[in-house]
């Protein structure tokens, strides 16, 4: 069974890239990982097509956990998941967790071979003090 994929979606391309760097350096290469940040014209924002492409890059038959920052990142990620279509939609979840810490925690959980629901729960455990 492959590891759960992780997708990082931020309004800022730099934050998305930096968070992905942290995951790679702290967790390693055993987890499929992709990131996207910024809108289609390169400004702050998120882009549905770019999120779909990131989900494709991080695709895993074990599922994909998406970490988002603010409002639009979440709604656009949900739209991107919706547009994936019936077959793949069920394998992608948005985690209710801070984007940087959540990505590291989710990836750590994934690197141990945990299933998608456990990966999501671990990321969300950050908020449940």
């Amino acid at each position, binding site marked *: 069974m492959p590891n759960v994929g992780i997708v990082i979606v931020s309004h800022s391309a730099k934050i998305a890239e930096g968070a992905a760097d942290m995951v790679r*350096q*702290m*967790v*390693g290469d055993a987890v499929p990982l992709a990131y996207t940040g910024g809108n289609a014209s390169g400004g702050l924002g998120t882009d549905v097509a770019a999120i779909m492409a990131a989900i494709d890059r991080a695709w895993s038959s074990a599922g994909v956990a998406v970490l988002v920052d603010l409002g639009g990142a979440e709604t656009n990620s949900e739209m991107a998941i919706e547009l994936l279509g019936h077959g793949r939609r069920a394998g992608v979840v948005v985690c209710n967790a801070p984007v940087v810490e959540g990505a*590291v*925690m989710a990836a*750590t*959980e994934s*690197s*141990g*071979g*945990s299933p998608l629901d456990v990966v999501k729960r*671990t990321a969300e*455990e*950050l908020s449940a003090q």
Partner: protein
Amino acid sequence: MKEQAMPNSALVASALLTNAVGLHARPSVKLTQLAKSFASHVELALHRDGPWVDAKSPVKIMRVKAPKGAMLYFRARGSDARAAIASLVALVDSRFDEDEHETGERAHG
């Protein structure tokens, strides 16, 4: 806590945390990844009598916030408990294979 509920077969060992940054983000990730590689139930505590936390949970391990000089206790129960304990103690003893000079100077974690 549930020490009493643990069968007598649970193994306990300890190791002194000597890396400069303590059990911060990066060492926590390494520790949980290693713990996850064993089938046994593995726990960590700062005291022999607990409280024990799941060593496979990166969030819980990071919340322990064990500083340099802390004694880490590992408790494992299961088919590969002995190997799990030995590996975790070795990881702590090796200072998590971190470059001490580099990581000690940086304010990360």
